[in-house]
């Protein structure tokens, strides 16, 4: 979707504010928000791409108002509601509905270390032909899907050069909507800054964007 989350190239967002000696979490609730979101992911009822899309659906006024972990919690609540893990009444009251089942957590403390060190690899060990090769000129497709995509607006329609083939990865545009992983090659594509932004950009600079096979066409 062409949402406000797709921020590359926007003006008017203000100055960058670096914080001295920034802590990992600024308050207890940030850590809890982080941990609860991860722990709920352990039920494997959704995936990383669906999680990202859910946050993209936050209304613009809220997206800009919320901090990072507020967005996480807003997205988590919606995913839990959609999956009937909680009810709206429970979220509002903070109390279980009477008669609601009590489950047993599967993502327990003993699993944390392995989970963190293994992660959730998105590379797939399958055979899929690559449509493009390093050094090939390619054009980012002009597409404007309503659903999730990782093709930023600022490169759509622009011509670049394949820098390298990263291998085969899950395709977010389908996976976010539970329409299959559709594994395909991901390439790093180099765009000359002036080709993207016009003559005012610095002549020596470039932007490397990781792009799935389906985002590209020969130039």
């Amino acid at each position: 979707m062409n949402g406000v989350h797709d921020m590359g190239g926007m003006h008017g967002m203000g100055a960058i504010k670096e914080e001295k000696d920034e802590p990992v979490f600024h308050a207890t609730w940030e850590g809890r928000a982080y941990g609860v979101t991860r722990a709920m992911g352990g039920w494997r009822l959704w995936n990383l791409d669906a999680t990202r899309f859910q946050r993209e659906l936050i209304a613009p006024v809220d997206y800009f108002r919320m901090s990072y972990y507020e967005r996480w919690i807003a997205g988590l609540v919606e995913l839990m509601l959609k999956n009937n893990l909680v009810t709206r009444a429970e979220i509002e009251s903070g109390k279980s509905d009477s008669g609601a089942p009590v489950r047993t957590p599967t993502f327990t403390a003993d699993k944390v270390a392995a989970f963190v060190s293994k992660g959730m690899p998105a590379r797939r060990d399958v055979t899929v032909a690559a449509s493009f090769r390093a050094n090939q000129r390619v054009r980012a497709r002009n597409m404007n899907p309503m659903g999730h995509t990782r093709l930023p607006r600022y490169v759509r329609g622009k011509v670049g050069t394949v820098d390298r083939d990263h291998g085969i990865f899950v395709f977010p545009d389908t996976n976010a909507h539970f329409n299959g992983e559709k594994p395909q090659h991901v390439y790093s594509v180099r765009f000359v800054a002036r080709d993207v932004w016009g003559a005012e950009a610095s002549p020596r600079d470039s932007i490397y964007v990781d792009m799935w096979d389906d985002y590209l066409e020969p130039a």
Partner: protein
Amino acid sequence: MTTSRRDLLTTALSAAAGVAVTSNHPRAHGTDHDHAHDHGHQDVPSDPALRVKALESLLVAKGLVDRAAVDALIDTYEHKVGPRNGARVVARAWTDRAYKQRLLSDADAAIAELGYGGLQGEHMVVVENTANVHNLVVCTLCSCYPWPVLGLPPVWYKSAPYRSRAVIDPRGVLGEFGLEIDENVEVRVWDSTAELRYLVLPERPGGGDGWSEEKLAAMVTRNAMIGVAKIATPVHGDRA
């Protein structure tokens, strides 16, 4: 177009400055909303702390969340995984030419040699700063960041100002961090749009010859590994 970008920039910035007045938000760090206001309103959202506490209690009561798992996750990123990991990778690359080659050609394996890897760093790419190339990492679409080597990202990396401008005006962004890049140096911006995660291998500064890997690692900053800083030459006689 006779209007130069620089003229417009100046005008725009002074205009933007005109908008800025005192803000009074009862909010914690990390919001994109901590800019100034000109209309004197107040947001009074329900306190996120209370809200998250209630949510966790609910999920624990329903048997959906193990509180100890949450504790362990927090402990991981507060005490185990952070930019010191990346700094050790950088220091090793600075002192071991063969390691550096492995790091640049197969980052996952090379980083795993030091015991790092995993969540949000499953597929790593290391890009090297040189006298001719300066690399900068961003995620314009959300806030992707190489957690196993840098920990969780700082607020500025996740903020709209950084995400929006790193790709369209990287030199301006670097200038805000106090870093002027010579016009003959190529700036390469890496937008983390897929599941690859990028770590910048900063230039090893002059000085510090014969320093231990550990002492070198202590010089390496998080910002240098994102690409918004360089690593300063150690002051002569400086001892870590």
